[in-house]
Protein backbone atom coordinates (compact mmCIF):
# COMPACT_ATOMS: atom_id res chain seq x y z
CA UNK A 1 0.00 0.00 0.00
CA UNK A 2 1.42 3.35 -0.94
CA UNK A 3 0.38 6.88 -0.33
CA UNK A 4 1.06 9.66 2.06
CA UNK A 5 -0.13 9.81 5.60
CA UNK A 6 -3.28 11.78 6.22
CA UNK A 7 -4.55 13.14 9.52
CA UNK A 8 -3.74 10.88 12.42
CA UNK A 9 -0.96 9.15 10.48
CA UNK A 10 -3.31 6.98 8.41
CA UNK A 11 -2.57 6.51 4.68
CA UNK A 12 -4.92 8.54 2.50
CA UNK A 13 -5.68 6.84 -0.83
CA UNK A 14 -8.20 9.55 -1.67
CA UNK A 15 -8.54 13.20 -0.76
CA UNK A 16 -10.84 15.72 -2.41
CA UNK A 17 -10.36 19.42 -1.74
CA UNK A 18 -13.07 21.84 -2.83
CA UNK A 19 -14.18 19.66 -5.71
CA UNK A 20 -17.03 21.08 -7.77
CA UNK A 21 -18.76 20.01 -10.93
CA UNK A 22 -20.87 22.02 -13.30
CA UNK A 23 -22.82 20.90 -16.34
CA UNK A 24 -23.22 24.19 -18.13
CA UNK A 25 -24.91 26.47 -15.58
CA UNK A 26 -26.06 23.62 -13.39
CA UNK A 27 -23.80 23.11 -10.38
CA UNK A 28 -24.05 19.43 -9.45
CA UNK A 29 -21.26 19.42 -6.87
CA UNK A 30 -20.04 22.35 -4.78
CA UNK A 31 -16.80 22.54 -2.80
CA UNK A 32 -16.69 18.92 -1.69
CA UNK A 33 -13.96 18.08 0.81
CA UNK A 34 -13.56 14.42 1.57
CA UNK A 35 -10.84 12.04 2.66
CA UNK A 36 -10.88 8.27 2.74
CA UNK A 37 -8.04 6.58 4.58
CA UNK A 38 -6.72 3.06 4.17
CA UNK A 39 -8.81 0.45 5.94
CA UNK A 40 -11.85 2.69 6.10
CA UNK A 41 -15.30 2.26 4.57
CA UNK A 42 -17.10 5.54 3.99
CA UNK A 43 -20.78 5.61 3.10
CA UNK A 44 -22.10 8.30 0.81
CA UNK A 45 -25.81 8.92 1.22
CA UNK A 46 -28.18 11.37 -0.35
CA UNK A 47 -31.39 11.68 -2.31
CA UNK A 48 -31.70 11.13 -6.03
CA UNK A 49 -29.89 13.88 -7.88
CA UNK A 50 -27.73 14.86 -4.93
CA UNK A 51 -24.53 14.19 -6.87
CA UNK A 52 -23.35 10.84 -5.49
CA UNK A 53 -22.77 9.14 -8.84
CA UNK A 54 -21.18 12.30 -10.22
CA UNK A 55 -18.79 12.41 -7.28
CA UNK A 56 -17.84 8.74 -7.72
CA UNK A 57 -17.40 9.26 -11.47
CA UNK A 58 -15.05 12.18 -10.82
CA UNK A 59 -12.99 10.09 -8.42
CA UNK A 60 -12.85 7.27 -10.98
CA UNK A 61 -11.71 9.68 -13.68
CA UNK A 62 -14.80 9.22 -15.81
CA UNK A 63 -15.68 12.89 -15.42
CA UNK A 64 -13.35 15.84 -15.04
CA UNK A 65 -14.07 18.08 -12.07
CA UNK A 66 -14.84 21.74 -12.80
CA UNK A 67 -12.95 23.00 -9.78
CA UNK A 68 -10.98 21.79 -6.77
CA UNK A 69 -8.28 19.23 -6.34
CA UNK A 70 -8.32 15.45 -6.39
CA UNK A 71 -5.43 13.66 -4.67
CA UNK A 72 -4.48 10.00 -4.79
CA UNK A 73 -2.00 8.77 -2.20
CA UNK A 74 -1.41 12.37 -1.19
CA UNK A 75 -0.45 13.53 -4.68
CA UNK A 76 -2.67 15.93 -6.65
CA UNK A 77 -4.01 14.32 -9.79
CA UNK A 78 -5.72 16.72 -12.18
CA UNK A 79 -6.36 13.80 -14.52
CA UNK A 80 -6.70 10.20 -13.37
CA UNK A 81 -3.59 8.69 -14.87
CA UNK A 82 -2.92 5.03 -15.60
CA UNK A 83 -1.02 4.60 -12.35
CA UNK A 84 -3.96 5.88 -10.33
CA UNK A 85 -6.46 3.82 -12.27
CA UNK A 86 -4.34 0.80 -11.46
CA UNK A 87 -4.90 1.54 -7.77
CA UNK A 88 -8.65 2.00 -7.87
CA UNK A 89 -11.65 -0.04 -8.91
CA UNK A 90 -15.18 1.15 -9.59
CA UNK A 91 -18.28 -1.02 -9.39
CA UNK A 92 -21.49 0.60 -10.54
CA UNK A 93 -25.08 -0.57 -10.38
CA UNK A 94 -24.97 -1.29 -14.13
CA UNK A 95 -22.30 -4.01 -13.46
CA UNK A 96 -20.61 -3.35 -16.85
CA UNK A 97 -19.90 -6.97 -17.76
CA UNK A 98 -19.70 -8.56 -21.19
CA UNK A 99 -22.77 -10.78 -21.52
CA UNK A 100 -21.15 -12.73 -24.37
CA UNK A 101 -18.27 -13.91 -22.17
CA UNK A 102 -18.27 -16.38 -19.32
CA UNK A 103 -17.70 -15.23 -15.74
CA UNK A 104 -14.14 -16.57 -15.86
CA UNK A 105 -13.45 -14.84 -19.19
CA UNK A 106 -14.77 -11.53 -17.87
CA UNK A 107 -12.47 -11.78 -14.86
CA UNK A 108 -9.54 -12.88 -16.96
CA UNK A 109 -9.96 -10.08 -19.50
CA UNK A 110 -9.84 -7.33 -16.90
CA UNK A 111 -7.11 -9.05 -14.89
CA UNK A 112 -4.98 -9.33 -18.02
CA UNK A 113 -5.66 -5.72 -18.94
CA UNK A 114 -4.46 -4.68 -15.49
CA UNK A 115 -1.35 -6.84 -15.46
CA UNK A 116 2.00 -5.98 -16.94
CA UNK A 117 2.95 -8.13 -19.91
CA UNK A 118 5.20 -10.41 -17.89
CA UNK A 119 2.95 -10.74 -14.83
CA UNK A 120 1.17 -14.04 -14.30
CA UNK A 121 -2.59 -14.01 -14.76
CA UNK A 122 -4.46 -13.55 -11.50
CA UNK A 123 -6.37 -16.77 -10.99
CA UNK A 124 -10.06 -15.91 -10.79
CA UNK A 125 -11.01 -19.26 -9.23
CA UNK A 126 -10.63 -18.36 -5.55
CA UNK A 127 -12.41 -15.04 -6.06
CA UNK A 128 -15.34 -16.68 -7.81
CA UNK A 129 -15.54 -19.22 -5.01
CA UNK A 130 -15.38 -16.50 -2.37
CA UNK A 131 -18.30 -14.69 -3.98
CA UNK A 132 -20.32 -17.87 -4.43
CA UNK A 133 -19.97 -18.03 -8.20
CA UNK A 134 -17.66 -20.99 -8.73
CA UNK A 135 -20.58 -23.13 -9.93
CA UNK A 136 -21.27 -20.59 -12.70
CA UNK A 137 -17.67 -19.79 -13.63
CA UNK A 138 -18.02 -21.11 -17.18
CA UNK A 139 -21.53 -19.86 -17.82
CA UNK A 140 -22.23 -16.91 -20.09
CA UNK A 141 -22.78 -13.80 -18.01
CA UNK A 142 -25.79 -12.96 -20.16
CA UNK A 143 -27.60 -15.82 -18.42
CA UNK A 144 -26.80 -14.53 -14.92
CA UNK A 145 -29.32 -13.02 -12.53
CA UNK A 146 -28.83 -9.37 -11.59
CA UNK A 147 -27.48 -10.31 -8.16
CA UNK A 148 -24.95 -12.73 -9.65
CA UNK A 149 -23.75 -10.01 -12.01
CA UNK A 150 -23.35 -7.67 -9.07
CA UNK A 151 -21.20 -10.23 -7.26
CA UNK A 152 -19.14 -10.88 -10.39
CA UNK A 153 -18.57 -7.16 -10.85
CA UNK A 154 -17.24 -7.04 -7.30
CA UNK A 155 -14.98 -10.04 -7.99
CA UNK A 156 -13.63 -8.27 -11.07
CA UNK A 157 -12.89 -5.17 -9.01
CA UNK A 158 -11.11 -7.13 -6.28
CA UNK A 159 -9.07 -9.14 -8.79
CA UNK A 160 -6.94 -6.05 -9.38
CA UNK A 161 -6.10 -5.77 -5.65
CA UNK A 162 -7.06 -2.08 -5.60
CA UNK A 163 -6.18 0.36 -2.82
CA UNK A 164 -9.41 2.30 -3.29
CA UNK A 165 -12.73 0.68 -4.13
CA UNK A 166 -15.65 2.79 -5.35
CA UNK A 167 -19.09 1.18 -5.09
CA UNK A 168 -22.18 2.79 -6.54
CA UNK A 169 -25.35 1.21 -5.13
CA UNK A 170 -23.65 -2.14 -4.43
CA UNK A 171 -26.67 -3.57 -2.61
CA UNK A 172 -28.99 -3.19 -5.58
CA UNK A 173 -30.55 -6.53 -6.54
CA UNK A 174 -28.71 -8.46 -3.84
CA UNK A 175 -30.78 -10.80 -1.73
CA UNK A 176 -30.19 -11.14 2.01
CA UNK A 177 -27.41 -13.77 1.72
CA UNK A 178 -25.85 -11.67 -1.04
CA UNK A 179 -25.83 -8.61 1.18
CA UNK A 180 -24.31 -10.57 4.01
CA UNK A 181 -21.65 -11.91 1.68
CA UNK A 182 -20.86 -8.41 0.42
CA UNK A 183 -20.58 -7.13 3.99
CA UNK A 184 -18.21 -9.98 4.88
CA UNK A 185 -16.04 -9.43 1.82
CA UNK A 186 -15.84 -5.70 2.50
CA UNK A 187 -14.88 -6.36 6.12
CA UNK A 188 -12.09 -8.72 5.00
CA UNK A 189 -10.83 -6.22 2.45
CA UNK A 190 -10.93 -3.44 4.99
CA UNK A 191 -8.73 -5.55 7.25
CA UNK A 192 -6.27 -5.86 4.37
CA UNK A 193 -6.17 -2.06 4.19
CA UNK A 194 -8.60 -1.36 1.37
CA UNK A 195 -10.27 2.05 1.40
CA UNK A 196 -13.90 1.99 0.25
CA UNK A 197 -16.23 4.79 -0.75
CA UNK A 198 -19.74 3.49 -1.35
CA UNK A 199 -23.00 5.17 -2.17
CA UNK A 200 -26.36 3.72 -1.30
CA UNK A 201 -29.95 4.57 -0.47
CA UNK A 202 -30.07 1.56 1.81
CA UNK A 203 -29.48 3.10 5.23
CA UNK A 204 -29.63 -0.26 7.04
CA UNK A 205 -26.91 -1.66 4.83
CA UNK A 206 -24.88 1.52 5.19
CA UNK A 207 -24.97 1.24 8.96
CA UNK A 208 -23.97 -2.41 8.73
CA UNK A 209 -20.86 -2.03 6.62
CA UNK A 210 -19.48 1.50 6.92
CA UNK A 211 -17.24 3.21 9.43
CA UNK A 212 -18.69 6.64 8.80
CA UNK A 213 -21.28 8.28 6.62
CA UNK A 214 -21.26 11.52 4.70
CA UNK A 215 -24.40 13.09 3.31
CA UNK A 216 -24.60 14.85 -0.03
CA UNK A 217 -27.43 17.27 -0.42
CA UNK A 218 -27.75 19.67 -3.33
CA UNK A 219 -24.19 18.91 -4.31
CA UNK A 220 -22.73 19.77 -0.90
CA UNK A 221 -21.48 17.55 1.87
CA UNK A 222 -23.48 18.57 4.90
CA UNK A 223 -23.59 17.73 8.55
CA UNK A 224 -26.40 15.20 8.58
CA UNK A 225 -26.26 14.84 12.34
CA UNK A 226 -27.40 18.41 12.73
CA UNK A 227 -30.20 18.20 10.17
CA UNK A 228 -33.42 19.86 11.21
CA UNK A 229 -36.20 18.51 9.04
CA UNK A 230 -39.59 16.87 8.95
CA UNK A 231 -38.76 15.16 5.68
CA UNK A 232 -38.75 11.37 6.39
CA UNK A 233 -35.98 10.80 3.85
CA UNK A 234 -33.69 13.32 5.52
CA UNK A 235 -34.57 11.96 8.92
CA UNK A 236 -33.58 8.49 7.76
CA UNK A 237 -30.20 9.81 6.66
CA UNK A 238 -29.80 11.56 9.98
CA UNK A 239 -30.65 8.34 11.76
CA UNK A 240 -28.08 6.50 9.66
CA UNK A 241 -25.45 9.05 10.51
CA UNK A 242 -26.37 9.05 14.18
CA UNK A 243 -26.43 5.27 14.17
CA UNK A 244 -22.75 5.42 13.38
CA UNK A 245 -22.34 8.21 15.86
CA UNK A 246 -20.53 10.67 13.64
CA UNK A 247 -20.37 12.86 10.67
CA UNK A 248 -17.06 13.90 9.28
CA UNK A 249 -15.86 14.50 5.77
CA UNK A 250 -12.31 14.41 7.04
CA UNK A 251 -10.55 11.36 8.33
CA UNK A 252 -9.92 9.76 10.62
CA UNK A 253 -12.77 9.30 12.99
CA UNK A 254 -15.38 11.70 14.36
CA UNK A 255 -14.42 15.16 15.40
CA UNK A 256 -15.19 16.10 18.96
CA UNK A 257 -17.57 18.81 17.84
CA UNK A 258 -19.49 16.46 15.55
CA UNK A 259 -19.83 13.87 18.27
CA UNK A 260 -20.94 16.54 20.66
CA UNK A 261 -23.50 17.76 18.15
CA UNK A 262 -24.87 14.25 17.80
CA UNK A 263 -25.01 13.75 21.55
CA UNK A 264 -26.78 17.02 21.94
Amino acid at each position, binding site marked *: MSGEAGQGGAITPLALHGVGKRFGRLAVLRAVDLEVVAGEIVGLVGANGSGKTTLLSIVAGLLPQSEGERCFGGRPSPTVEMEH*RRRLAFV*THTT*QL*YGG*LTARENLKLFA*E*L*RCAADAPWIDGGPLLERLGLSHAADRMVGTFSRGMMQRLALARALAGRPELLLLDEPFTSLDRPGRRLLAEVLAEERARGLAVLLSSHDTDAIIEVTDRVVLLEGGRLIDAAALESDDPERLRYRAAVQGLGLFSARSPGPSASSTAAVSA
Partner: protein
Amino acid sequence: MPQPPAATTSLRSLARQTWLLARNDLRQEMRDFELVATAGFFTLVVLVMFGLSFSTLGRYAQPMAVPGILWLAVAFVGSLTLTRIFDREREADTLRALLAAPVHRLAIYLAKAGVTLAVLLGCCAILVPGLVLMFDAAAPFAERPLATFSLVFLGCAAYATIGTLFAAGLSTSGGKNVLLSVILYPLTSPALMFALVSTRTLLDGHPGFEGYLSQLVALDILQLVVSAWLFESVLVGTAGGSSRRKRSAGRRT
Protein backbone atom coordinates in the same frame (compact mmCIF):
# COMPACT_ATOMS: atom_id res chain seq x y z
CA MET B 1 19.46 -7.26 -15.93
CA PRO B 2 18.87 -3.79 -17.44
CA GLN B 3 15.26 -2.60 -17.43
CA PRO B 4 13.74 -1.49 -20.76
CA PRO B 5 13.03 2.26 -21.03
CA ALA B 6 9.60 3.44 -19.83
CA ALA B 7 8.54 4.31 -23.38
CA THR B 8 9.28 0.75 -24.52
CA THR B 9 7.32 -0.70 -21.61
CA SER B 10 4.44 1.63 -22.35
CA LEU B 11 4.44 0.72 -26.03
CA ARG B 12 4.53 -2.97 -25.18
CA SER B 13 1.66 -2.50 -22.75
CA LEU B 14 -0.31 -0.57 -25.41
CA ALA B 15 0.24 -3.31 -27.98
CA ARG B 16 -0.75 -5.99 -25.48
CA GLN B 17 -3.92 -4.23 -24.37
CA THR B 18 -4.88 -3.53 -27.98
CA TRP B 19 -4.52 -7.22 -28.77
CA LEU B 20 -6.50 -8.26 -25.66
CA LEU B 21 -9.38 -5.93 -26.51
CA ALA B 22 -9.45 -6.89 -30.17
CA ARG B 23 -9.32 -10.57 -29.24
CA ASN B 24 -12.20 -10.01 -26.83
CA ASP B 25 -14.32 -8.49 -29.61
CA LEU B 26 -13.40 -11.23 -32.07
CA ARG B 27 -14.10 -13.95 -29.51
CA GLN B 28 -17.60 -12.64 -28.90
CA GLU B 29 -18.11 -12.14 -32.61
CA MET B 30 -17.13 -15.74 -33.31
CA ARG B 31 -19.84 -16.83 -30.88
CA ASP B 32 -22.77 -14.88 -32.24
CA PHE B 33 -21.59 -13.83 -35.75
CA GLU B 34 -23.76 -10.75 -35.33
CA LEU B 35 -21.52 -8.29 -37.13
CA VAL B 36 -19.86 -10.68 -39.56
CA ALA B 37 -23.15 -12.19 -40.71
CA THR B 38 -24.79 -8.79 -41.18
CA ALA B 39 -21.82 -7.29 -43.02
CA GLY B 40 -21.18 -10.44 -45.06
CA PHE B 41 -24.75 -10.85 -46.30
CA PHE B 42 -25.00 -7.15 -46.98
CA THR B 43 -21.82 -7.32 -49.08
CA LEU B 44 -23.20 -10.25 -51.05
CA VAL B 45 -26.47 -8.47 -51.73
CA VAL B 46 -24.69 -5.29 -52.84
CA LEU B 47 -22.37 -7.29 -55.07
CA VAL B 48 -25.18 -9.23 -56.73
CA MET B 49 -27.32 -6.12 -57.25
CA PHE B 50 -24.49 -4.09 -58.73
CA GLY B 51 -23.37 -7.09 -60.75
CA LEU B 52 -26.80 -7.57 -62.26
CA SER B 53 -27.16 -3.86 -62.95
CA PHE B 54 -23.76 -3.22 -64.53
CA SER B 55 -22.60 -6.55 -65.97
CA THR B 56 -23.77 -5.57 -69.45
CA LEU B 57 -21.69 -2.39 -69.50
CA GLY B 58 -19.28 -2.10 -72.39
CA ARG B 59 -15.54 -2.63 -72.01
CA TYR B 60 -14.90 1.13 -71.85
CA ALA B 61 -17.50 1.83 -69.18
CA GLN B 62 -16.58 -1.06 -66.90
CA PRO B 63 -13.26 0.36 -65.61
CA MET B 64 -15.17 3.43 -64.52
CA ALA B 65 -17.96 1.45 -62.82
CA VAL B 66 -15.89 -1.18 -60.95
CA PRO B 67 -14.02 1.24 -58.60
CA GLY B 68 -17.32 2.92 -57.76
CA ILE B 69 -18.97 -0.42 -56.96
CA LEU B 70 -16.04 -1.50 -54.79
CA TRP B 71 -15.80 1.64 -52.67
CA LEU B 72 -19.52 2.30 -52.49
CA ALA B 73 -19.93 -1.21 -51.09
CA VAL B 74 -17.12 -0.53 -48.60
CA ALA B 75 -18.82 2.71 -47.58
CA PHE B 76 -22.15 0.95 -47.01
CA VAL B 77 -20.66 -1.99 -45.15
CA GLY B 78 -18.40 0.38 -43.21
CA SER B 79 -21.25 2.51 -41.94
CA LEU B 80 -23.18 -0.64 -41.03
CA THR B 81 -20.16 -1.95 -39.11
CA LEU B 82 -19.45 1.33 -37.37
CA THR B 83 -23.01 1.67 -36.11
CA ARG B 84 -22.59 -1.68 -34.36
CA ILE B 85 -18.93 -1.74 -33.41
CA PHE B 86 -19.59 -0.22 -29.96
CA ASP B 87 -22.89 -2.06 -29.43
CA ARG B 88 -21.51 -4.50 -26.87
CA GLU B 89 -20.01 -1.67 -24.87
CA ARG B 90 -23.18 0.39 -25.17
CA GLU B 91 -25.57 -2.37 -24.15
CA ALA B 92 -23.65 -3.42 -21.06
CA ASP B 93 -22.00 -0.04 -20.37
CA THR B 94 -18.64 -1.83 -20.41
CA LEU B 95 -16.94 1.16 -21.99
CA ARG B 96 -17.09 2.91 -18.62
CA ALA B 97 -15.50 -0.16 -17.00
CA LEU B 98 -12.68 0.04 -19.53
CA LEU B 99 -12.27 3.77 -18.95
CA ALA B 100 -12.06 3.30 -15.19
CA ALA B 101 -9.55 0.45 -15.56
CA PRO B 102 -5.83 1.00 -16.20
CA VAL B 103 -6.32 0.65 -19.93
CA HIS B 104 -4.70 2.95 -22.50
CA ARG B 105 -7.48 4.93 -24.21
CA LEU B 106 -5.48 4.51 -27.38
CA ALA B 107 -5.70 0.72 -27.00
CA ILE B 108 -9.51 0.94 -27.04
CA TYR B 109 -9.36 3.02 -30.21
CA LEU B 110 -6.80 0.82 -31.95
CA ALA B 111 -8.68 -2.37 -31.05
CA LYS B 112 -11.98 -1.05 -32.35
CA ALA B 113 -10.40 0.38 -35.50
CA GLY B 114 -8.59 -2.93 -35.99
CA VAL B 115 -11.80 -4.96 -35.71
CA THR B 116 -13.57 -2.56 -38.10
CA LEU B 117 -10.70 -2.94 -40.53
CA ALA B 118 -10.83 -6.74 -40.20
CA VAL B 119 -14.57 -6.75 -40.99
CA LEU B 120 -14.05 -4.46 -44.00
CA LEU B 121 -11.18 -6.60 -45.29
CA GLY B 122 -13.35 -9.68 -44.83
CA CYS B 123 -16.04 -8.06 -46.96
CA CYS B 124 -13.45 -7.09 -49.57
CA ALA B 125 -12.40 -10.73 -49.65
CA ILE B 126 -15.91 -11.39 -51.01
CA LEU B 127 -16.18 -8.21 -53.08
CA VAL B 128 -12.92 -8.31 -55.02
CA PRO B 129 -13.17 -11.93 -56.30
CA GLY B 130 -16.83 -11.29 -57.01
CA LEU B 131 -15.97 -8.27 -59.13
CA VAL B 132 -13.28 -10.25 -60.95
CA LEU B 133 -15.86 -12.92 -61.77
CA MET B 134 -18.52 -10.47 -62.91
CA PHE B 135 -16.50 -7.83 -64.75
CA ASP B 136 -13.71 -8.31 -67.29
CA ALA B 137 -12.35 -4.91 -66.39
CA ALA B 138 -11.62 -6.15 -62.85
CA ALA B 139 -9.07 -8.68 -64.12
CA PRO B 140 -6.08 -6.54 -62.92
CA PHE B 141 -7.23 -7.29 -59.36
CA ALA B 142 -6.32 -10.94 -59.98
CA GLU B 143 -3.24 -10.14 -62.03
CA ARG B 144 -1.70 -7.83 -59.43
CA PRO B 145 -2.75 -9.32 -56.08
CA LEU B 146 -0.15 -7.49 -53.98
CA ALA B 147 -1.09 -4.10 -55.42
CA THR B 148 -4.77 -4.94 -54.99
CA PHE B 149 -4.27 -5.99 -51.38
CA SER B 150 -2.28 -2.81 -50.63
CA LEU B 151 -4.97 -0.66 -52.19
CA VAL B 152 -7.84 -2.38 -50.42
CA PHE B 153 -5.98 -2.41 -47.10
CA LEU B 154 -5.07 1.28 -47.25
CA GLY B 155 -8.52 2.35 -48.41
CA CYS B 156 -10.29 0.36 -45.70
CA ALA B 157 -7.79 1.56 -43.08
CA ALA B 158 -8.49 5.17 -44.03
CA TYR B 159 -12.21 4.54 -43.60
CA ALA B 160 -11.78 2.68 -40.29
CA THR B 161 -9.43 5.20 -38.66
CA ILE B 162 -11.74 8.18 -38.99
CA GLY B 163 -14.97 6.20 -38.71
CA THR B 164 -14.07 4.59 -35.37
CA LEU B 165 -13.47 7.99 -33.79
CA PHE B 166 -16.96 9.19 -34.62
CA ALA B 167 -18.60 5.85 -33.87
CA ALA B 168 -17.14 6.04 -30.34
CA GLY B 169 -18.30 9.59 -29.83
CA LEU B 170 -21.81 9.07 -31.05
CA SER B 171 -22.40 5.68 -29.47
CA THR B 172 -21.36 6.74 -25.98
CA SER B 173 -23.06 10.11 -26.12
CA GLY B 174 -26.34 8.55 -27.11
CA GLY B 175 -26.21 10.08 -30.56
CA LYS B 176 -28.52 8.50 -33.06
CA ASN B 177 -26.94 6.21 -35.60
CA VAL B 178 -28.35 8.36 -38.36
CA LEU B 179 -26.03 11.09 -37.11
CA LEU B 180 -23.09 8.78 -37.64
CA SER B 181 -23.91 8.51 -41.31
CA VAL B 182 -24.51 12.23 -41.62
CA ILE B 183 -21.10 12.97 -40.12
CA LEU B 184 -19.32 9.90 -41.42
CA TYR B 185 -19.87 10.23 -45.16
CA PRO B 186 -18.49 13.76 -45.54
CA LEU B 187 -15.50 12.90 -43.37
CA THR B 188 -14.68 9.64 -45.11
CA SER B 189 -15.16 11.15 -48.56
CA PRO B 190 -11.47 12.08 -48.99
CA ALA B 191 -10.42 8.50 -48.17
CA LEU B 192 -13.02 7.04 -50.51
CA MET B 193 -12.09 9.49 -53.32
CA PHE B 194 -8.39 8.67 -52.97
CA ALA B 195 -9.16 4.95 -52.95
CA LEU B 196 -11.48 5.26 -55.93
CA VAL B 197 -9.00 7.19 -58.06
CA SER B 198 -6.21 4.77 -57.07
CA THR B 199 -8.39 1.83 -58.08
CA ARG B 200 -9.05 3.40 -61.48
CA THR B 201 -5.34 3.87 -62.07
CA LEU B 202 -4.76 0.22 -61.09
CA LEU B 203 -7.43 -1.03 -63.48
CA ASP B 204 -6.20 1.26 -66.28
CA GLY B 205 -2.61 0.16 -65.76
CA HIS B 206 -1.72 3.82 -65.19
CA PRO B 207 1.94 4.37 -64.20
CA GLY B 208 0.89 6.82 -61.48
CA PHE B 209 -0.69 4.07 -59.36
CA GLU B 210 2.19 3.93 -56.85
CA GLY B 211 1.99 7.70 -56.43
CA TYR B 212 -1.69 7.52 -55.57
CA LEU B 213 -0.96 4.69 -53.18
CA SER B 214 1.65 6.84 -51.43
CA GLN B 215 -0.93 9.59 -51.01
CA LEU B 216 -3.29 7.05 -49.50
CA VAL B 217 -0.55 6.02 -47.05
CA ALA B 218 -0.07 9.67 -46.08
CA LEU B 219 -3.83 10.10 -45.59
CA ASP B 220 -3.95 6.96 -43.43
CA ILE B 221 -1.14 8.23 -41.22
CA LEU B 222 -2.67 11.70 -40.92
CA GLN B 223 -6.11 10.32 -40.00
CA LEU B 224 -4.63 7.83 -37.56
CA VAL B 225 -2.62 10.48 -35.74
CA VAL B 226 -5.51 12.96 -35.56
CA SER B 227 -8.02 10.31 -34.47
CA ALA B 228 -5.67 8.87 -31.84
CA TRP B 229 -5.04 12.38 -30.54
CA LEU B 230 -8.73 13.22 -30.30
CA PHE B 231 -10.03 9.86 -29.13
CA GLU B 232 -9.46 10.31 -25.40
CA SER B 233 -11.23 13.66 -25.23
CA VAL B 234 -14.08 12.31 -27.34
CA LEU B 235 -14.38 9.24 -25.15
CA VAL B 236 -14.06 10.83 -21.71
CA GLY B 237 -16.20 13.78 -22.71
CA THR B 238 -18.92 11.52 -24.00
CA ALA B 239 -18.65 9.15 -21.04
CA GLY B 240 -19.65 12.22 -19.05
CA GLY B 241 -22.42 12.76 -21.52
CA SER B 242 -23.46 9.18 -20.98
CA SER B 243 -23.70 9.71 -17.26
CA ARG B 244 -25.69 12.89 -17.78
CA ARG B 245 -28.04 10.98 -20.02
CA LYS B 246 -28.56 8.41 -17.30
CA ARG B 247 -29.28 11.09 -14.77
CA SER B 248 -31.88 12.60 -17.00
CA ALA B 249 -33.42 9.16 -17.29
CA GLY B 250 -33.87 9.23 -13.54
CA ARG B 251 -31.15 6.79 -12.65
CA ARG B 252 -28.89 9.25 -10.93
CA THR B 253 -28.49 8.62 -7.26
